[in-house]
């Protein structure tokens, strides 16, 4: 009997070791393999898919254009994916696995701040550069990481602009800022808490009143209790942040419960496609975005062209209009290619140093990192849903349409 068990145990161990795949090199012949763990299942699966599509599109485009040259030799790109199931514990394990077992020396980020927080210590330990496009929490940049580079603006700046906008409008109307009431409802996760932090700092700066400061329920599928309070408190601005699911719930229930707030600002509207799914509730909602197709940036490397070109190419490939999560993910690949070319090598340390010195413009915006690995060359924009279309309303430099305020009842 025990022999059987010994055999079983040995069998399993052998099976694992054989089947989990053997280590391969990251630069094999003319293929450079980047590693990524993205959320294909779990609560972030929608945005995980947008992230993956963004990476894939850039890779496809680069390879179709014949690859890129490093020291006269042409290389192509591939990405090795795993599914992190939207859980940080898994993300950290997969980062280890990509580096130790799959021999990956260049990492791409996962989706969300929490998962990036879990992967960053691993890449840091192994001194493997990671360019991430979807982890915006400020706390990512206070750990002294040297190998983490984020091409997006940090989370605290997402909706701070909405508070500015409210202050601006109130001044125009001659209202005292002290009379303005702001309600905040966010998910209890690293990203959304940072969004809240940035907004609340602004509220305090203008001495507005924070009349509601609540956490969305963990499942993010019902915020009726919060909206009931909002109805009673009559705030001038309602801020909601809870990734795609939170945005969808808010847009749906604001309409369902007929809650009226003159200004509503959210994150992740476009990745939740609220303008299509809940056109009534979504109308005139303000959305924070890292990028919009109407911004006048274009690729230094001519990979896609400008924002509109990117939207066309993406839509042709995947059948839907790209949210900014895809755009920034595509640019992460562009930044890598640019760094490979400048480093003239695939040595992780050299590539890391090249990334640190990045200075490029893509269709998505400018990329330039500060010493903490944060992209400081690109502002956030605020979009407003007008007739089920996103229009840039702030900052003024790029505003294509005047803000509709207050939202019509």
């Amino acid at each position, binding site marked *: 009997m025990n022999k059987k068990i010994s055999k079983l145990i040995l069998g399993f161990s052998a099976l694992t070791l054989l089947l989990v795949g053997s280590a391969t090199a990251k630069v094999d012949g003319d293929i450079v393999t980047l590693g990524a763990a993205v959320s294909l299942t779990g609560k972030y699966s929608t945005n995980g898919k947008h992230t993956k599509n963004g990476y894939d599109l850039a890779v496809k485009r680069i390879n179709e254009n014949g690859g890129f040259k490093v020291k006269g030799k042409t290389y192509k790109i591939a990405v090795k994916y795993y599914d992190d199931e939207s859980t940080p*514990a898994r993300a950290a394990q997969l980062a280890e696995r990509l580096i130790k077992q799959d021999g990956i020396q260049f990492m791409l980020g996962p989706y969300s701040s929490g998962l990036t927080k879990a992967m960053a210590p691993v890449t840091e330990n192994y001194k493997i550069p990671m360019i991430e496009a979807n982890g915006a929490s400020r706390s990512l940049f206070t750990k002294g990481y040297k190998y983490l580079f984020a091409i997006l603006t940090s989370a605290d700046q997402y909706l701070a602009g909405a508070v500015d906008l409210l202050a601006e409008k109130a001044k125009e109307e001659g209202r005292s800022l002290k009379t303005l009431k702001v309600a905040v409802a966010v998910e209890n996760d690293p990203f959304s808490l940072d969004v809240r932090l940035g907004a609340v700092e602004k509220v305090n700066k203008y001495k507005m009143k924070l009349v509601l400061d609540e956490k969305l329920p963990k499942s993010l599928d019902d915020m009726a209790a919060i909206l009931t309070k909002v109805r009673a408190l009559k705030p001038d601005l309602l801020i909601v942040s809870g990734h795609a699911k939170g945005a969808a719930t808010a847009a749906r229930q604001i309409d369902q419960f007929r809650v009226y707030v003159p200004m509503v600002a959210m994150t992740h509207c476009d990745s939740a496609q609220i303008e299509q799914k809940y056109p009534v509730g979504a109308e005139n909602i303000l959305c924070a975005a890292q990028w919009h197709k109407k911004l006048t940036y274009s690729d230094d490397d001519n990979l896609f062209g400008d924002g509109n070109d990117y939207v066309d190419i993406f839509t042709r490939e995947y059948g839907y209009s790209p949210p900014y999560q895809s755009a920034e993910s595509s640019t992460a690949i562009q930044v890598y290619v640019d760094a490979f070319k400048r480093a003239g090598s695939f040595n992780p340390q050299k590539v890391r140093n090249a990334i640190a010195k990045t200075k490029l413009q893509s269709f998505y915006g400018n990329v330039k990192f500060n010493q903490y690995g944060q992209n400081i060359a690109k502002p956030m924009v605020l979009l407003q849903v007008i007739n089920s279309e996103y229009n840039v309303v702030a900052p003024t430099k790029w505003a294509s349409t005047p803000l509709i305020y207050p939202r019509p009842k």
Partner: protein
Amino acid sequence: MRDFTKNDIRLFIALCSLGLVAPILFPAYINQLSFAWIFVVIALSWDMQGGHMGYNSFGNIVFFGVGMYAAASFQILPFFSLGDWTEAGGVQTFEHSVSQYFSGYALGILFAAIAAVATAFIFGNLILKMRGHYFAICTLALGVAIGEVFASIEILGAGQGLSLAVWPRGFLDDTYRRLFFYYQGFLLFVLCFLSISYIIRTRFGMTLNAIRDGEDKAESMGLNTNFYKISSWILSAFFIGLCGALVGHLVGFIDPIDVAFSGATYGIWMIIMAIIGGKGRLWGPVIGALFFHAFNEIFWTYFLGWQRVALGLIIVIIVVFFPEGILGFFQVRKKSSVSALSTQPQQQKK
């Protein structure tokens, strides 16, 4: 009371030898191997109540999370302000020196054990008087509730989570870091296995079986069942708490719901592993955990995006066709077995 058979000893020695040399043979897999031992320990510990005592607890994840938070925070506390460390949007960076890291580490491990044991003592007194489904549902709710509580404690980072101290910069090569954690996981397995295999052979273990087979009868024979139930839960908490501490360090970042009090992953896995292997049997959880971990890893590689479906199917197949678990299946086929593998229900009843 049954002795440890020669075969058991041989098997254990074989497994230990394998455990000792595995990281040298498969250096790229140290991390996965560490998790393998941890999985074995949490499955074995869960089986103390779930299998031997017949109390299906869905709440042992509480000890896991409490241990994880205790280990992380007591490593930080003596040297830095925990409030500053976890402050949302804080701008300070903190680095442990080598001595700070390891003294804090030891303190953290100590407190992980203490906190988990204390939690088991408190909640054991409160809820172990319940039986059957009531107990199971209560522990399920306990796991969820404690997770939510931790997700709102500001000083522990609340929903922002808590990043653990990073391995001191420039101290020893990374391989040593991984070996450091690996051998702790391995040691934990040895300790846990030996304790449990000893305990289930004593009067204490017999009492646990008696509670499973008929608690009222056990009580009417004058056994203080409450004492035994709480003691076994405490023992289980001790090991699971330490596993939590280790997993915290291996993952490096604690999210209150998704890592520490993750009922949907570790919480339910510890039960599944025990069931797959065969609960109430010493080797059952060991085999179940190794099987589960192996298949988990394989599915992640080959069924991208479908790994949970594949794993779910395997579990369904095992539950339907091998209700007694893998080990139970072999034992039923070979009824003659008199090995010590079986503190098996049927044999106990004789």
